[in-house]
């Protein structure tokens, strides 16, 4: 039985090697016999490779309906002329590598993308440059697809007139790896997408969100960087999310959030860095979220937690140099567990030298409660008056939530 299995392996490998040897390579270019990519695709057999020379190709919409590998040499330009969809992938096992795809059409009726993948599997979009497209890379109802090392850039001015950098809808098991997205509406947008890994992407200067997902369960977001996006990162209506080692930077504005969690449940947020956001984390209707080992530094509000949040755990986070640590709209914020975080505003002592403060820390200051109700009160922030209010409240808590406290705050910052 075992030898039979081995034989099968050998035969399989042999066939694979032969297959790759016999798969033809078709060259396309001005100096070649075949001058159009569309023609090359119609001539090709499934499994063939099409090599495209440097040059400019405006062939309307190039539809790939066979399992092919398209490779561009020195970034040949595929121009959509603001009218067409440069690449439409309608077959499985397609690879598109090394193209400069630009100027797709704009439409409010259909989502035209630089490279759009329709209802298929095992497509790989790698090492491309996408410029000035409506949507960048678009996966529609696809499985096991990969988008990696793409540089996606758009020059959108309003949310209505621009699409998303990497957009996935109703897909499963995608890998989105090491892409950079700039100037789109949302950097990365996932809707009804499951079992997907979003890793090492950089999403910068997008008009709305750096990352945006809805109804996308069981996904992981690792080592991504979201900087200077119009409204930061917003994630909604999702279960079992894992967000690890991401960086949320300088998301500034009235409604800008480092990370906005709306109706997120059973999720993990660990080892992320939130630096200089107006609001680092905003939680609404979010339950059973584990927030651990995050660095929250120099934010306006480190954590805004609404009354609709329950059973969340905040452990071992560093709260450093934030204007306000925690604010809430509710007096009796129950059943959320704050424990063993480091708060730089903590003024307690540690008599038994176990590294944990002996008196609890209440992260909600009276002045932050006042600012929540009367935003104009920010005018008096850091005045003697505000200090006085905070001090009296510390001595006799009456207006700040009583059970929102860290029983064992750390005395020194943690290594996160």
């Amino acid at each position, binding site marked *: 039985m075992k030898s039979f299995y081995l034989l099968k392996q050998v035969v399989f490998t042999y066939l694979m090697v032969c297959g790759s040897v016999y798969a033809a390579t078709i060259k396309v270019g001005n100096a070649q016999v075949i001058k159009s990519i569309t023609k090359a695709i119609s001539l090709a057999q499934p499994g063939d490779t099409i090599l495209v020379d440097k040059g400019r190709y405006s062939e309307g919409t190039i539809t790939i309906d066979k399992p092919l590998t398209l490779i561009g040499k020195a970034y040949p330009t595929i121009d959509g002329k603001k009218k067409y969809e440069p690449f439409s992938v309608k077959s499985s096992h397609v690879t598109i590598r090394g193209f400069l795809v630009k100027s797709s059409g704009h439409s409010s009726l259909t989502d035209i993308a630089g490279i759009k993948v329709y209802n298929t599997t095992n497509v790989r979009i790698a090492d491309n440059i996408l410029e000035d497209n409506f949507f960048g890379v678009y996966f529609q109802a696809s499985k096991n697809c990969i988008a990696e090392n793409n540089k996606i850039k758009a020059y959108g001015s309003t949310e209505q007139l621009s699409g998303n950098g990497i957009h996935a809808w109703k897909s499963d098991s995608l890998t989105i790896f090491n892409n950079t997205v700039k100037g789109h509406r949302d950097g990365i947008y996932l809707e009804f997408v499951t079992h997907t890994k979003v890793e090492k992407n950089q999403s910068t200067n997008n008009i709305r969100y750096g990352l945006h997902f809805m109804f996308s369960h069981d996904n992981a977001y690792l080592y991504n960087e979201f900087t200077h996006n119009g409204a930061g990162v917003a994630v909604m209506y999702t279960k079992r999310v894992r967000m690890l080692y991401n960086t949320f930077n300088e998301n*500034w*504005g*009235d409604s*800008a959030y480092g990370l906005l969690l709306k109706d997120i449940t059973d999720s993990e947020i660990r080892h992320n860095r939130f630096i*200089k*956001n*107006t*609001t680092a984390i905003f939680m609404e209707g979010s339950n059973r979220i584990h927030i651990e080992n995050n660095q929250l530094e*120099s*934010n*306006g*509000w480190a954590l805004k937690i609404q009354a609709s949040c329950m059973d969340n755990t905040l452990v071992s986070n560093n709260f*450093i*140099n934030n*204007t*306000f640590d925690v604010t809430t709209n509710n007096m009796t914020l129950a059943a959320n567990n704050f424990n063993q975080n480091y708060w*730089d505003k903590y003024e307690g002592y540690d008599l038994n030298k176990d590294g944990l403060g002996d008196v609890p820390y209440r992260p909600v200051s009276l002045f932050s409660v006042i*600012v929540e*109700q*009367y*935003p*104009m*009160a*920010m*005018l*008096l*922030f*850091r*005045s*003697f*008056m*505000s*200090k006085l209010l905070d001090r009296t409240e510390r001595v006799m808590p009456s207006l700040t939530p009583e059970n929102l406290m860290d029983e064992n705050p750390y005395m020194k910052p943690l290594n996160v």
Partner: protein
Amino acid sequence: MLKIIKYVISDILRSRTIIAYMVLLLALAFSVLGMESNAEKGIVSLLNIVLFVVPLVSIIFATVYLYNSAEFIELLVSQPLKRTKIWGSIFLGLSGAITLAFLIGVGIPIIIFAWIPSGILLLVCGAGLSAIFVSIALWTAVQIRDKAKGIGLAILLWLYFALLFDALVLFLMFQFSDYPIENGMVALTMLNPIDITRIIILLEVDLSAMMGYTGAIFQNFFGTGGGMTLTAIILLLWITLPFLFSTLNFKKKDL
């Protein structure tokens, strides 16, 4: 005129009070900035001290000095000198000496520990505050002949600017929170030099929070070049106007 300024400055710098003030600022600034590992946080702590101590010392010291040198001023007036020149040199000498003490006391620790934009801003604003409160002291001292009353008024004025004004603003804010009071509130703060200073520095150190809703209002005003120029002009007005009024009074005063 230069001679009088020189005399006033050297007279003040020889007094023990101003040396004590300088040493106090040095000690406070060194300990606050030295203990805090984060320079920005150190500046924020120092800001509270500066906003509290500098106006107090400036206004009280200037008032006391003016009353104590009443005879000297009388002597000067008897000389063939213009009264405006005498008064002007006293103002320049007083504010120069106090500002110098402040710049040394807070400046050295800031140069050593926190040479960052917010630190420099704190220095500039603190120097401005010193001059403003000397100017206010001049105005009150020229109007009240009785020393005890004069010092009492100086303390009251300080209390008003440092505490009562903010309480008043907070009260108004609570009362009129349903109305669009944003611009009015910003205008209201212009009536208190301590508040102006605080907000300018706040915009530097709490930038992230200031980019939020309310921040946007400040940012629209203070963040723009025009708003900043206007603020600078208002601070200058706070220095010159009380001084001008006091000069008018001094010119007519029967000594």
